[in-house]
C-alpha cells in the first residue's frame, strides 16, 4: 500500500459491502458432511477463555474419526460447497463462508493488515509473549516494543511442551496483537502485526480517517 492511500476508494468499498467474509477450508482429508445451509445464523467461540465452541457446521470423517467443523465467528452462512457433500476431499479446500457485519475497529484492522507485517501461528497451540518481550510491553507499552528478525518473541505451549518462536520479517514495532494469552490459536491465524517505523505516520492517518468518517 503506497503512501498516497485512496481513503475514499477503501471506505466506499466498506460502505457498499460492510461485511467481513470468513472462508473456512478443510483442515483434514476425509468425507465431508454439512449441517448448515446458506442463510443460517451461526455463533462463534464464546466464554471468557473462548473455550465454548461455535456452531457445529459439519463434520469431516477420516478413518472413522469424526472431526467437527465449528464456526470461528458469529454471522450468517453465505456459502456452502454443497457439491462436496458426502465426498472425499483433500485438506485445504474451501468449504464454507461466513459473513458478519463489520465494526469500526474491525475495518481499521482490516485496512491495517495491508500495511503491517503479519506474523501467524505455526501450530494450533496457546501462545505467550517471551518473557523479555512481555516485560518490555509492561514497562513501555505494546506499541513501543520493537522486534527484529531472530528475536525470541513467543513461547508456544502445546501438550505441556514449551517451544520458543522466533520472529521472522522486517524489523518494526508491535502494533496489533491478535491473540489472548491462554486462548488456543488455530494454525495460520494471526498473532501480531508489526509496523515498520516508516509506516507509522501512514497507520496513524488511516486510524484517524476511519474513526472520523465511519459511523459508530
Amino acid at each position, binding site marked *: 500500500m503506497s503512501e498516497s492511500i485512496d481513503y475514499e476508494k477503501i471506505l466506499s468499498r466498506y460502505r457498499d459491502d460492510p461485511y467481513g467474509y470468513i472462508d473456512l477450508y478443510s483442515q483434514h482429508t476425509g468425507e465431508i458432511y454439512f449441517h448448515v445451509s446458506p442463510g443460517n445464523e451461526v455463533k462463534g467461540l464464546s466464554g471468557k477463555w473462548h*473455550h*465454548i465452541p461455535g456452531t457445529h457446521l459439519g463434520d469431516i470423517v477420516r478413518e472413522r474419526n469424526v472431526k467437527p467443523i465449528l464456526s470461528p465467528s458469529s454471522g450468517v452462512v453465505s456459502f456452502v460447497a454443497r457439491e462436496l457433500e458426502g465426498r472425499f476431499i483433500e485438506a485445504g479446500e474451501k468449504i464454507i463462508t461466513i459473513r458478519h457485519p463489520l465494526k469500526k475497529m474491525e475495518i481499521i484492522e482490516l485496512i491495517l493488515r495491508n500495511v503491517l507485517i503479519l506474523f501467524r501461528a505455526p501450530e494450533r497451540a496457546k501462545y505467550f509473549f517471551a518473557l523479555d518481550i512481555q516485560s518490555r510491553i509492561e514497562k513501555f507499552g505494546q506499541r513501543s516494543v520493537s522486534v527484529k528478525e531472530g528475536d525470541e518473541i513467543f513461547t508456544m505451549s502445546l*501438550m*505441556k511442551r514449551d517451544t520458543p518462536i*522466533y520472529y521472522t520479517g522486517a524489523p518494526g514495532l508491535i502494533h496489533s496483537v491478535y491473540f489472548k494469552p*491462554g486462548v488456543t490459536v488455530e494454525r495460520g491465524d494471526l498473532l501480531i502485526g508489526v509496523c515498520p517505523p516508516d509506516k507509522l505516520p501512514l497507520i496513524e492517518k488511516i486510524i484517524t480517517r476511519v474513526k472520523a468518517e465511519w459511523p459508530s
Partner: protein
Amino acid sequence: MALVTSPTLICTPADLVTYIENEEKERRYPGFTTSSIDKIFRYGGHIGSEILFFPFLERGMDEARRLIREYGAENRSFSSGLVIAAESLGSGKGRFRRRWHASAGGIWLTVVIVNTLLPQASRLLPLAAGAACCETALFFGLPASMKWVNDVQVNDRKTAGILTETMIYAGEEYVLLGIGMNVNNTDFPVEISDSALSFRSFLGRECDLGKVLVDLLAKLAWNVGLIYFFEARQLAEEASVHPLIKRCNELCDSVGRQVLFGFNVEEEPQYEALVLGIDEEGGLRMRLSEDNRLVTEYSGEISYLS
C-alpha cells in the same frame, strides 16, 4: 563439570541394550509382531545412546543446553537420545516455575532428542515420556495411572512428573524431556507431603535405582519408538489407530472424571468438564459442565474434582 560415576544410579548404554533384548522385548508381545517390536525398538534405539551421570546439578535442563552449545561450538554432532542423570538437583522446577523437590534417592533425568519428527508426531513426545514413567511404576508394583498430559499418580498423589522444553540452536530443534520420578526419596517438603508419593513410601521398601532407571529408559525407547513407527506407517498410508494414544488411553485414569481445566489450573482455573478421552492427536476430549458441549484441549492441565 567433572562426571562422577554414581554407585547407585548407574546404567550404561550397553546395559540398556541388553535389558531391552533380554527382558523388555518379551513384554511387548501382546498386540505386536516380532518384526514390529524389533522395528519399534530400533526407532527408539537412540534413547540412552549416551548416558551422563552427575552427583549434583542445579538443573538438568541447563546442563543439556550448555552441552548443546558446547557441541555446536566445537562442531561436533550431538547424540540424539543423550541422557543426563543427576543424583539430586538444586533448583529443579516444574511448569510455571513450580519448584520440583529433587533430593537424592529419586531419578532426575533430562533426555535430549534431536527432533526429526513431523510436527504432528513430535507433539506426542510428552505423552511418550508420561507413558514410560507410568509403565515403570506399574512394573515395580505401584497401581499407577497417567493424568493428562503426563503426570503419573498413585492414588491421586504424584509419583512422576515431566517438563518438556524446546531449544533451537544453529537451525536444529532439540526436545528436552525433563523427567522426575520419586523412587527412594521420602523427604518431601511439608507443602507437598500430601500430594507427592515415592515408590518407597508406597511399597515400604527401597528399590534398586539402577534397575528402575534401565527399565524407565527401555520403556521410553519403546514409547518414543512408537511415535516414529506410526509416523512411518502414516507416511506409507498404512496407519490406523495410533498405538501410543491407545496405550495412553489405557494408562490414563482421567476418563469419566469431573475435572477443572486451566492453562495454569492452580492459579487460574477456567472451567469444569467431564473427561471423555484422549484424541488421536493427544488432545483431551471433554464435555463442558456448563452446557454439555464437546471441547478438545491441546494445552493446559487438569485437576480432579471427582
